[in-house]
């Protein structure tokens, strides 16, 4: 029984990580694969989404229940009153009002207890936070790329990288956003399902988001706009000559894909139960997604899913086994891991730049449909007196 539980937990975790990365890689595929935007600041939108989850729901519920105003404000709410009284044994000042970042443990514990008994409120918290995160992501996608959106890709790459780095610095040093160096816990909106099942529900939420991101990416890529994106990537001047506003298309893609990645970030923060700025670094949330997309096959939707899956699964394996190497080596095995990853990517770029599944021509209409259109056109073209 214990073993099946462990296996289940392992699988659930794997799926959650996979789904979180899929939101990132799908959006990166839209940017880099289809439109040719070198988003070296991918971590920016994902982290922004996570920070949004660390920032908004706790504060909002705190205001809603009056946790910051002292115990009189919520005296008739038995769960909250009991919970805060419990914490007041350790720190009497909490009865006068809680501070979100400073008394984060107390705030989130008490709010989680409230949410535990209120599935509807929990659900609205998730929806609201995801929407807020998406909005933040969209705004950041626009702002971060604005200075360089009209210039060559390399300027855009440098700017996005710098922007992402600065957002990380701010998240790390400004505790009001997401607790800074210590991070914050997030009130658990999945607590109402009870016990360990919350991870399952959190994973399902992530998976729904990932599937939506994937389906969206598929639809866009086979739509007329998908072809325009490819035109921007392959022939900027030609696209412009045909009346397409290249800058606006790039902006649109960046805004949408940053929003998608940010929603993934918010759901990931709910899954993990907290946010800490150091977890959102350049390697884990910018570089790894790039490896996944390039490995799977840029501009091939299925390839990106495959790349993400292979990468996440092999990461699990590596994490599982790598520490058995630790005593043998004179240095931390983490670096062997990163070294190997860098080398693999360079080899990949040279030996198989198209990835495992190469890009295919855009999907066209079904053959029967094309034939029927042609025959209808012929019908019309035929002169009426011809028997």
């Amino acid at each position, binding site marked *: 029984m214990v073993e099946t539980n462990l296996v289940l937990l392992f699988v659930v975790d794997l799926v959650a990580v996979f789904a979180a990365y899929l939101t990132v890689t799908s959006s990166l595929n839209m940017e880099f694969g289809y439109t040719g935007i*070198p988003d070296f600041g991918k971590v920016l939108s994902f982290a922004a989404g996570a920070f949004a989850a660390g920032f908004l729901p706790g504060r909002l519920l705190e205001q809603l229940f009056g946790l910051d105003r002292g115990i009189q404000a919520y005296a008739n709410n038995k769960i909250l009153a009991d919970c805060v009284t419990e914490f007041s044994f350790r720190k009497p000042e909490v009865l006068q009002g809680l501070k979100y970042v400073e008394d984060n443990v107390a705030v989130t514990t008490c709010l989680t207890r409230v949410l535990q008994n209120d599935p509807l409120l929990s659900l609205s918290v998730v929806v609201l936070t995801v929407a807020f995160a998406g909005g933040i992501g969209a705004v950041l996608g626009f702002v971060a790329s604005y200075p360089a959106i009209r210039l060559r*890709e390399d300027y855009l790459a440098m700017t996005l990288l710098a922007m992402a780095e600065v957002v990380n610095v*701010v998240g790390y040093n400004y505790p009001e956003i997401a607790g800074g160096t210590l991070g914050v816990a997030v009130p658990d909106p999945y607590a109402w399902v009870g016990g360990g099942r919350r991870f399952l529900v959190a994973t399902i939420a992530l998976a729904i988001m990932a599937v939506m991101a994937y389906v969206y990416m598929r639809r866009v890529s086979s739509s007329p706009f998908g072809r325009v994106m490819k035109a921007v990537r392959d022939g900027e001047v030609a696209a412009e000559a045909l009346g397409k506003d290249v800058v606006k298309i790039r902006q649109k893609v960046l805004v949408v894909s940053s929003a998608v990645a940010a929603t993934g970030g918010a759901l990931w923060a709910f899954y993990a139960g907290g946010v800490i700025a150091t977890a959102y670094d350049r390697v884990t949330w910018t570089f790894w997604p790039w490896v996944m997309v390039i490995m799977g096959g840029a501009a091939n939707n299925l390839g990106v899913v495959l790349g993400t899956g292979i990468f996440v699964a092999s990461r699990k394996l590596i994490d599982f086994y790598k520490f058995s190497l630790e005593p043998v080596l*004179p240095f931390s095995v983490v670096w*062997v891991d990163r070294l190997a990853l860098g080398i693999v990517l360079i080899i990949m770029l040279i030996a198989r*730049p198209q990835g495992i599944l190469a890009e295919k021509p855009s999907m066209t209409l079904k053959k029967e449909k094309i034939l029927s259109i042609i025959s209808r056109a012929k019908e019309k073209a035929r002169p009426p007196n011809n028997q």
Partner: protein
Amino acid sequence: MAIEPIFRDAIVFASLLSLLSVGLTLTYLVTKVPNFAHGTIASIGIYVTLTSTELLQSDPYEFLPAAFLLGGCANLILYFVAIRPLNRRGAGLVSLMVATIAYDLVLVASLNMYADYLTKTFKIASRDFILRKHDLVLLGQPGVFLTAPVIAVVLVVVLYVFLTKTRFGVAMRAAIEDMALAGVLGINVRRVYVVSWFLAGGLGGLAGAMLGLWFQSDPGYGQRVLISIFAASVVGGLANIYGGMIGGLLVGLAEILGTNWLGGILGTWVFPYRAIIPLLAMVIALLLAPKGITGVKWSQAIRKVVGR
């Protein structure tokens, strides 16, 4: 002579940053790809200084050529292993940039391994170290405070003479202007690539070696400085190496003095946000003068501001 410590920081950082952005601009000019590993080339220099002082107990200045050589070789490896094969295959700009990022990861990992090795085997503090005590004292000043600007100026003068007065330098400029035409005229374009990448890496390694003598360092130092290098190069315009020099000086001074000034007004909480200043410099440059400081037609700009 008493000098405010902050001015020392500013002078050392600004002159070394200009060496770094000259290097980045040089490789950008020949290959048209920004080298995302350029910051970590400086980290290599830092670890050369650490090794020479803490492990070998010798004069860090004797090892400056070694830092130059190692930095240059690291950049050459990137060129031969990734840039040239990719260019041959007609890979796009984005693939080239991704390759430099991947190489950056490799370099950072290697430096971290080396740092772990130093600590485990020789019990040397190899992260968050400060090596100022190993520096010389020149004219009552810490050595690097004088040598950094002097070396920066000398190197740029040497580079100027090399590019304008020597045969190979002129050939190099011709190749930068128009690779195909230069090749037709019998200039060995491939050698131009190799020399540029080596020189750029060398300058990076040298700058890193001296940065390590002054600032607190760790293997990730270069990655953090990368934003400043990009900002400096963009401010300089990425169009000629003198632009890189000027951009480096401007951004370096603005970063250190600006943070200090804001810290004085707003309080010390400002200091961790130092990275915002190069970012702002970059954004302003991109919005107002995307061709950089050397691309601005100053007389026109002044006329515009002053009014006809």
